[in-house]
């Protein structure tokens, strides 16, 4: 570095200054953040949403692949006996990547990690010799005198396989919230809708802000920074109508005339719930007639097919309690 001789002091000071600011802004916060235990919200969220939602090699085109299915189970899949009050289970079919908390239980926090490993047997799920997928649920347990929720691997503790659970699950009990989050990220919902009620306000309108441990295992968090539209973190508590969601996504102006939200009718795909081809051109023409006052009512919104992208997005919205 001959050309740099006379800048020895400057170069060292530069390293010191930049290194110092990296220590304060990267190292110290990472120590703090790593010490935060998962809340129940984080545990449920990562089981429902799965491994990675942004670009990943398992789902490079963000089609909602490699995602778990949440099932509100009403009967025991082995015995067929009704389960009192129902039970939320998360089905990871063979090949579906496990969430960060199962692959790296350390991020769950000490108590949850110990319970999930010892009583929930989550390490069995990642064992390469037993890769038929797994079914998880959340349970309460006690570790060193304190109560924690922990992840229970039902495939190891009860022998319930993904196939068993899917056999008894009816379509209305199933939520594709994981795939729905992929739609949320891909379609850029988060450019206008935040997932972050502010700590300083928002309590009345959008509900409680999240806590530090609410995000363990989530990627991307997709908080959003620009709120051109209502916050959605608790939208499922404010509005749980599938019918309303369906109309609103197809054309937001049907339910909110002043909305500036784009139409997401293209998420319906080719066919509606009855398997009929959806005639978008005709729908738009009829809607334009309605807007111009030539029709009294707008055309009916086609019902979405149960495997459509919009169904998963609605499921994700309703999962935001």
């Amino acid at each position, binding site marked *: 570095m001959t050309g740099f001789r006379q800048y020895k002091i400057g170069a060292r000071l530069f390293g010191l200054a930049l290194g110092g600011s990296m220590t304060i*802004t990267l190292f110290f916060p990472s120590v703090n953040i790593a010490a935060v235990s998962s809340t129940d919200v984080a545990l449920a969220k990562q089981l429902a949403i799965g491994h990675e939602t942004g670009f990943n090699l398992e789902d490079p085109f963000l089609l909602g692949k490699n995602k778990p299915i949440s099932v509100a189970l009403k009967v025991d899949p082995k015995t067929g006996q009704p389960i009192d009050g129902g039970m939320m289970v998360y089905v990871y079919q063979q090949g579906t990547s496990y969430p960060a908390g199962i692959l790296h239980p350390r991020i769950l926090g000490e108590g949850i990690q110990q319970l999930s490993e010892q009583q929930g047997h989550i390490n069995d799920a990642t064992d390469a010799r037993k890769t038929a997928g797994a079914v998880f649920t959340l349970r309460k347990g006690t570790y060193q005198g304190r109560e924690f929720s922990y992840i229970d691997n039902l495939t190891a503790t009860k022998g319930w396989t993904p196939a068993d659970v899917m056999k008894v699950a009816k379509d209305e009990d199933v939520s594709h919230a994981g795939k729905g989050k992929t739609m949320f990220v891909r379609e*850029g919902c988060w450019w206008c809708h935040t997932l972050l009620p502010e700590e300083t306000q928002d309590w009345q309108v959008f509900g409680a802000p999240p806590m530090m441990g609410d995000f363990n295992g989530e990627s*991307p968090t997709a908080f959003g920074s620009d709120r051109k539209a209502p916050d959605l973190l608790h939208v499922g508590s404010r509005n749980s109508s599938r019918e309303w969601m369906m109309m609103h996504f197809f054309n937001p102006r049907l339910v909110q005339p002043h909305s500036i939200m784009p139409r997401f009718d293209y998420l319906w795909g080719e066919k509606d719930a009855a398997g009929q081809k959806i005639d978008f051109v005709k729908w738009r023409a009829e809607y334009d007639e309605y807007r111009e006052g030539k029709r009294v009512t707008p055309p009916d919104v086609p019902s979405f097919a149960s495997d459509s992208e919009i169904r998963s997005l609605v499921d994700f919205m309703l999962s935001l309690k």
Partner: protein
Amino acid sequence: MLKYLFAKNEDIPSGSAAVFFGFSSIVWFVIGTGLGSFNAAKLAFPDFVTGNEFFAFGHMRQVHVMAVIFGWISMAFAMAMMYITPALGNNKLWSEKLGLWNCMLWNVGLTLGLTILWAGITSGREYSDFPWPIDLYIAFAIFIPLGVNVWMTVLNRRTQGIYTTNWFFLAATFMVIIVFLIGNLPEFFHLTGLTEAYLTWWFAHNVLGLWITPVAAAIAYYVIPKVTGNPLYSHRIGHLHFWSVVVFYSTPAAHHLMSAPLPEWLKSFASVEGVLILVPAIAFVSNILLTMQGKWYMFVESIEIRFTITGCLMAIPLNMQGGFQQTRAINWYIHGTGWIVAHAHLALLGFSTFLEAAAVYYGLQALTKRKLYSITLANLHFWLLLIGFTVYWVSMTIAGLIQGAGKIYEVPYIDVVIAEHPYMIARWLGGTMVFVGNVLWLYNMWMTARKGTVVPQGRMPHELAYER
């Protein structure tokens, strides 16, 4: 340009890489502002082009942002580095060939990255939206070759000292590589949760603070003394600027997440450091304005000076906003509103763009050795940019204050949307003016290279009179 890609380095005319970068940057500016104008139209008129995912706002918004940051602004920076770094070292660019390849790989990579981003293939992280293979490409095929060229040119300089502009170029090319590689760690290694959220904003803040702001300022430190003929007012103030950027501007990342659940000490620290960015800001603006002493007539007469000084003057409201809007009291009111959108455009379209435009105007004339084709078109470009930007900034600031009030007083959200509507139309008109101005600029620079009057040997373009 493409014919030189496989030529011997010594056969490539000096300045080829800078010219290639210069025109690329203008083309990306036209594309980026065109997308911005289209997006703004959709916010004003939601049924304008509808029912197709490729023209959905959520697919196009990030393409606009990335096109202007990594297309226009960063390529204009590269253009400036390609001709200013050797000019200040009294030598030639270390490798024109590397520069040309750098520019070509940059255009190819950015086109690829924006296309897949447009299709919805995204990491879901604001400002680091590109999927991680594209991030690696940007680091290794774009920023590292750029840094190598700049560093080697300075190390092989034929002057004794290093001028202020080149300190900034050296530091910024180094820091942007670090920022890129660390800021994208969540994607490389699947880091999750608050770590991911915080690193997203750590990246977003530092790419502005350690790349865009210092390089833009460095350009002004070259253009003003060069065109006016005045020496820089004070190298000591330049030192203050440089060191305070490194120390203060690299630390306030957490102030983008003031209302998120991060450790409180981190937010307080970031907020205090955030106010301290006024130190480099004041040092920079005062140094540049004092350099103009005795040459203020050039603010009217020279297009390069007019762009640079306007950009510097816009740094005053920019940093006043930037320093104080992230303190808890003000952040409470304006966080997440259009105010922030206006502020971001003041930084990138106001302050930064005006400084780079001057460097591209000046550089393309000096390198092609041709006088600007038309001062009339340049004036039109300037005023369309300035008026268009001002309309945009004022309307978005007002819209932001309405949103803030709606937030604090718990007004039903739809009433805020209704109240904002006129300002959404105004921002679209302002953005469209900027786009039209850039189309004129592209034509003007193309004609300059083709038909501009040849600058005689030993003369500088700014010594010749404008002709049209």
